[in-house]
């Protein structure tokens, strides 16, 4: 029944078009100027309060609108304080708007491009503005938000150009699924997936980019981060982890403006681990030129010690050029941009290029009908090199330091390597990985206002990209079976198409009660198809192409994934005099991924806010006190549903096993896939949030505090099952994750005068994600994609403990905790892994200081992370190779405290800490490799100077700004390895992800940028 109703919604909405419009009153006009410099303000929104009728000011700040004497006009502009004026008998209303940078703007974009008054929101939303995004000089918009948004944890996965960044809002709610928010551009969801195992390579070998990297930061006007399900409910089930709402720049009426900006950057590796320089190549203390280990004799004095690890890094150069043109008439506006970004890497043959073209235009067909659209074409090309293992780029952690690794070719021109690993320098030149993405994001919208009280908006958008991936191992590699060369390729096409219809009716009762009701319909179709092929044994050794291998050396496979979601929703807003607000929302989704009988599910939310200061004023209790200038409390409760991954309701059959099991010669139950579950139900997250927003001293100090608690139960969980169930993996409903946290934002303007302002934005957040229940008798959920080299540790969620745990090798102990030693007195490795650390930070925060003096502006961001363990798998590898400083006590003896397992007697045997111990015993206990990943870093520091207008004189340039930025210049941490901002397998790993695993990836960088921006 519900389905039929939803389907009929379409019909009902469009019947409304048949009504005719009614008269609207007299014309009111005026000019809007800035209170600060008395300049005209174009693009200011002027709307009749409680109605959908509105306009924007033109280039000279002028507007004209039809209004009745009883109407109230609302003037709003991003970054300025809102002004309301009753029309009365006036035909001209001039307004001056005051800057409001200190308390963020009063209007934020929430769902579907709808701007909402911030004071009306019953939940926490944080907005990041264009300037704040671009001044970070980050290529990846996800990174541009680092440290700026309370409760949002962003981890870049390393220093390779195009490295993926993980964003998690308020922890995570899913044990095995996606924990990253939905990205929405101008009302249309776009793809921010990160491919894993492209071309069959393991997640840690060639981590892909997160696809939001395709979005040009210069095109962005603002980003709103909707943190909780309450804020996200209107976007439906894909918003369960929050939403990043991106609003792009639009043209404004008036003379066309041309902007040009550029930047030139230099980057270096930020931090490298310390390697021992006392022992040279060899085995068991004796020199051996064939050994990859540094277990030989001591270096003799005067012997050259090579910095092989440093030899793979260089200074990277990056340049960026952006041009945009915008303008328009009162009826039509346009914005066009072109961008070229060419990022070099700190390792040879790594780089990222992004070329983007964007055009958007809006036009008023009539007073009631507005159409608009935008098209964005992006080409992102990335080159990178394998990492995460001995034969990858960081394989230098194995290389003996008496040998110059840079000599990677023999005189005959073939690879010069040691033992079974590729020489990293050879790998950099001969094992290229490339990814070429072509992407189009196109959006069209129709906005129709048949009556004063009614608005109909329809929007259709699509995000389509193809990704051509290629990984080559040239002949001569030591990779088993690929000595004559091999290549893995894949081509992926991915499309998300979304249709959204919104019908909004507004009405004001008794002058004081405003209501607004939106009914909406939303349909989303996403499809991803990947074709992968592999070939080996190049016929011509120099030509890396699938056509260059014989047919029997080729394999090919294809994977298709498709999902459709239809939603219908209602959003009811009630407000009383702009003082008290209540919002009810309900949504029903129908998802293709669930069994037919469980396909439809409903979820509601309710939120409210009360502007206490205005209420007191209204009641006559106060009159706009000088100390407390604004106070608001808010609360919300929301529930959001989530569907299953596509195609997991039935168990698949396969015709292959693995390289150590018989070829089945026919169809067998697919042991490598999840056991299908035809009875899956949707999972739900319930969330509760309360908060307060108070401002003091005429808004010069603002404090916003939020407390929240969410609980996700009956999860759709892809988990491991006991083999005796018949499967290793199965999808099932079960398990519960609770998140609880606090977010505090404080902004201050300690100094504001004509020439000098100083503002401070401070945010701090704490989140604790606890696994409350797991299905069956599981005590943990392990993530195999977050497995580090040597399989010594992996990410796992532990029952009763953290969602972000580390599951690692430990030594065997008895129930009393004593070590159980072997007969010789050495510790033994336990057969099962245990909890050894928690990657979740205790607190995260950021402090942004912005100082402006005349036309100078100086801004810097301190990024703080307190707590959060890191598993240092790089160090673990160094121990095994003998290059770790931990191995300097080699040859010494030790009596391990514990009991001999076979006899039960206390140990008295002295053992030697020799190569065998450091290679087969010591690395297989995790505790010594779990380190505190706390940091304090100067994320960026930027100085800009606007040339005074008089200096530009008669040039066509109306504004010229030059800037210099330093990134990551200071880093304070006790972590012993590389920059602790690490994520071993990149952002593609589901569940709790792979952040907090330092696993032989290209380390993070630091650098500086210089550039200019000018406007014609």
């Amino acid at each position, binding site marked *: 029944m519900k*389905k*039929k109703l939803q*389907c*009929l919604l*379409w*019909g009902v909405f*469009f019947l409304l*078009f*048949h009504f005719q419009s009614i008269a609207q009153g007299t014309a009111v006009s005026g000019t809007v100027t800035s209170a600060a410099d008395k300049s005209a303000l174009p693009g200011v929104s002027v709307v009749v309060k409680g109605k959908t009728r509105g306009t924007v000011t033109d280039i000279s700040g002028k507007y004209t609108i039809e209004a009745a004497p009883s109407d109230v006009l609302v003037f709003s502009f991003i970054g300025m304080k809102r002004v309301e004026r009753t029309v009365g008998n006036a035909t001209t209303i001039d307004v001056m708007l005051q800057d409001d940078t200190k308390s963020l703007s009063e209007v934020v974009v929430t769902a579907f491009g709808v701007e909402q008054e911030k004071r009306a929101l019953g939940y926490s939303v944080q907005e990041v503005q264009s300037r704040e995004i671009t001044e970070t000089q980050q290529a990846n918009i996800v990174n541009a938000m680092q440290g700026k948004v309370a409760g949002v944890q962003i981890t870049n996965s390393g220093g390779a150009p195009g490295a993926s960044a993980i964003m998690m809002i308020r922890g995570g709610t899913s044990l095995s699924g996606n924990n990253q928010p939905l990205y929405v551009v101008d009302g249309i969801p776009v793809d921010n997936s990160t491919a894993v195992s492209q071309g069959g390579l393991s997640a840690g070998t060639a981590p892909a980019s997160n696809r939001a990297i395709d979005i040009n930061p210069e095109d962005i006007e603002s980003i709103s981060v909707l943190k909780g399900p309450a804020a996200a409910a209107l976007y439906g089930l894909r918003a369960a982890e929050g939403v990043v709402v991106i609003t792009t720049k639009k043209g404004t009426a008036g003379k066309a403006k041309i902007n040009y900006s550029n930047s030139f950057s230099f980057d270096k590796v930020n931090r490298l681990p310390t390697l021992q320089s006392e022992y040279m190549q060899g085995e068991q203390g004796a020199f051996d030129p064939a050994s990859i280990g540094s277990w030989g004799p001591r270096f003799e004095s005067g012997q050259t010690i090579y910095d092989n690890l440093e030899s793979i890094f260089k200074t990277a150069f990056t340049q960026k050029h952006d041009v945009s043109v915008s303008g328009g008439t009162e009826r039509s506006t346009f914005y066009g941009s072109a961008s070229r970004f060419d990022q070099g890497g700190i390792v040879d043959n790594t780089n990222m290029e992004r070329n983007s073209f964007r055009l958007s235009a809006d036009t008023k067909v009539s007073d009631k009908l507005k159409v608009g659209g935008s098209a964005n074409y992006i080409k992102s090309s990335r080159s990178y090199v394998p990492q995460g293992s001995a034969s990858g780029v960081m394989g230098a952690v194995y290389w003996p330091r008496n040998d110059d690794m840079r000599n990677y070719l023999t005189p005959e021109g073939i690879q010069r390597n040691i033992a079974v690993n590729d020489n990293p320098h050879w790998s950099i030149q001969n094992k290229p990985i490339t990814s070429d993405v072509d992407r189009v994001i196109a959006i069209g919208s129709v906005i129709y206002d048949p009556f004063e009280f009614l608005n109909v908006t329809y929007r259709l958008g699509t995000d389509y990209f193809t990704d051509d991936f290629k990984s080559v191992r040239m002949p001569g590699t030591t990779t088993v079976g690929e000595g004559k060369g091999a290549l893995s390729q894949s081509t992926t096409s991915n499309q998300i198409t979304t249709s959204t219809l919104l019908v909004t009716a507004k009405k004001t009762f008794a002058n004081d009660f405003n209501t607004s009701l939106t009914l909406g319909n939303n*349909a989303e179709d996403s499809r991803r198809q990947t074709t992968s092929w592999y070939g080996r044994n190049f016929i011509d050794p120099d030509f890396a192409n699938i056509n260059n291998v014989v047919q029997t050396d080729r394999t090919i496979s*294809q*994977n*298709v*994934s*498709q999902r459709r979601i*239809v939603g219908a929703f209602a959003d009811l807003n009630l407000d009383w005099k702009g003082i008290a607000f209540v919002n009810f929302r309900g949504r029903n989704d129908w998802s*293709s991924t*669930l069994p037919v009988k469980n*396909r439809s599910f409903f979820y509601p939310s309710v939120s409210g806010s009360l502007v206490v200061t205005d209420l007191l004023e209204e009641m006559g209790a106060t009159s706009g006190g000088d100390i407390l200038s604004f106070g608001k409390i808010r609360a919300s409760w929301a529930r959001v549903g989530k569907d299953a991954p596509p*195609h997991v309701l*039935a168990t*698949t*059959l*396969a015709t292959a*096993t693995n*390289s*150590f*099991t*018989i*070829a*089945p*010669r*026919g*169809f*067998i*139950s*697919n*042991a490598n896939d999840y056991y299908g*579950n035809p*009875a899956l139900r949707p999972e739900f997250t319930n969330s509760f949030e309360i908060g307060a927003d108070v401002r003091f001293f005429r808004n010069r100090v603002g404090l916003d505090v939020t407390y929240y608690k969410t609980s996700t139960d009956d999860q759709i969980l892809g988990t*491991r*099952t*006991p*083999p*005796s*169930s*018949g*499967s*290793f993996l199965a999808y*099932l409903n079960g398990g519960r994750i609770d998140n609880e946290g606090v977010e505090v934002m404080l902004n201050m303007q300690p100094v504001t005068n004509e020439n000098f302002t100083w503002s401070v934005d401070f945010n701090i957040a704490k989140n604790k994600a606890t696994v409350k229940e797991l*299905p*069956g*008798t599981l*005590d943990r959920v392990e993530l195999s994609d977050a497995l580090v080299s040597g399989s010594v540790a992996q990410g796992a969620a532990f029952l009763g403990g953290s969602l972000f745990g580390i599951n690692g090798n430990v030594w065997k102990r008895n129930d009393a905790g004593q070590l159980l030693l*072997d*007969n010789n007195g050495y510790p033994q490795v336990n*057969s*099962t892994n245990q909890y050894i650390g928690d990657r979740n930070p205790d607190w995260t925060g950021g402090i942004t200081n912005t100082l402006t003096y005349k036309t100078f502006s100086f801004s810097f961001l301190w990024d703080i992370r307190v707590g959060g363990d890191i598993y240092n798998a790089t160090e673990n590898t160094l121990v095994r190779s003998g290059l770790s400083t931990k191995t300097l006590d080699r040859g010494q003896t030790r009596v391990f405290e514990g009991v001999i*397992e*076979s006899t039960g007697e206390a140990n008295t045997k002295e053992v030697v800490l020799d190569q065998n111990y450091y290679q087969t015993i010591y690395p297989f206990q995790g505790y010594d490799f779990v380190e505190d990943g706390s940091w304090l870093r100067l994320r960026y520091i930027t100085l800009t100077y606007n040339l005074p207008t008089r200096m530009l004189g008669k040039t066509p340039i109306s504004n010229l700004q030059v800037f210099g930025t330093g990134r990551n210049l200071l880093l304070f941490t006790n972590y012993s390895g590389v920059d602790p901002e690490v994520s071993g397998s990149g952002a593609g790993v589901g569940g709790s992800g792979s952040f907090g695993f330092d696993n032989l990836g290209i380390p993070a960088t630091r650098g500086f940028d210089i550039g200019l921006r000018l406007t014609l």
Partner: protein
Amino acid sequence: MKITYSKIKLFLVATLLFSTSCESYLDINEDPNLPTIVPAHTRLVGAITTTNGASMWRGSREVAGITQYASTALTTGSNRNAETWRFTASYFFWQNAYVFTMPNCVDLIVLGEKEGNPHFVGAGKTLLALNYGMLTDQYGAIVVDDYYDGTSQIKLTPKFNTQEEVYQKIDQLLDEAIEAFNNPNNKVSLNFSGGDIMYQGNVDKWRRLAWSLKARYANHLSKKGSLYNSAKIIEAAQNGFNADGMDAEFAYMAGAQQTDENPWYSWGGFTSVDPVNDRYFAWTQFFVDLLQNLPVTETDYQDPRISRIMNPAPSDGQYRGLRSGLGLAGGQGGSGKFTSVSDYGLFKNSGYYTKATSPFPFITYSEVKLIEAEAKLRSGDAAGALVAFEEGVKANMRKLGVTSAEINAYWAALLADGVAAHFSNQTRGLSHIMRQKYITQCLNPETWVDMRRMDFSQEIYGPSLKRPENINTVVFNANDPSQWIQGMVYETNEQNRNGEQIGDNSERYRLLTPLWWNRP
């Protein structure tokens, strides 16, 4: 306005179209990449191959070291763990049976019933019973009742059945299989799409396989007093294989993928360039001795099968084997002599059992006759036992390509050595039967069952049978030669995910505690 109206009409049409197609719009969840259901006749081959090359292979890969068929060369590294009894929860026969293999047997049963093809039900039940049998004989209690049933949801914490219950279930499954093979209303032949790589659709042979397995598992209960019924074993054996050419096996394939080859030849750990790095380097001296000495008297007589199973040493043409646990450095039989690679015929690619295309038999006619011989001997029918014994020995020799002249000479030598008289004594008779079974069941994990039932007795297996050197002393008492390995540790995945059901899974308990059928 006119334009607006036509637009509206367009939208209305679109809306109507959408309303009617709303349901089908969402029906796109069927897996586009792999099938989820195919007919039973296309599933039979996978059930057979995985029962052999996943389940039985992983149940014998290490057990061949325990039963001292073969030995590794190096004294370091992990290959030596099996023959020195260093078993942990990392022993993975469990998952290879439960996940890689048995769902295919269960699916065959379910599909056969659904399609009205009882012969597939029979094949599924026979193979499932065999897998349960191999599992319980290494672990004791296993999951049966709560295992995947092909129709309902999988269970997250399956309960374990006692070994006694498992044995009842195996017998019941085989009875049901026989009944299914007897069902005349079968629509699609077992070999409809060429999937019956064992019997090419010959249902009589399948039925005889089920009977043969009934004989094997009933025969395991020799220590269980009233549960042991020799008459039933003899009946089952006689309904089982009754001629050459019925052995439950299929040839592995050469020239295709590596995993189409026999695992003992290549992908099972035998691809090293230097054979000392292979999982097993050479056969053991214990096996060589069995093939060069007659039981009871230990009279020297070279079994003609030795040249069909093993290769002589390249250095001097002699047959030599290693002592379990000592590696190549330990020399022939642990003597310290003959320590170079060329002093030994290699294990891999050496003879009947370890070539690329060698079959890896589940159960053979020879084994069935030797089971019959044991049952008759225990029932007091020594003469009948000897007749079955003779056929069991000769059947294996014929299979290995031994000439009639050699066979007759060998049998004459046995007679001359007093085999007929030996059969009047149960221990001596069993010594003959078990040593022949050891040879005929080469590499089959069934040998470990026999050795445990015989308490690893030197009276049965001869003076050459000794515990390995460098034994796992964390579990086993170095000074107690009567302490032998009795069972396996449940694998780590079961322990971690189903720990409450599994009981004491310590190595000490699991490796030392005799299974139910091995306790009086």
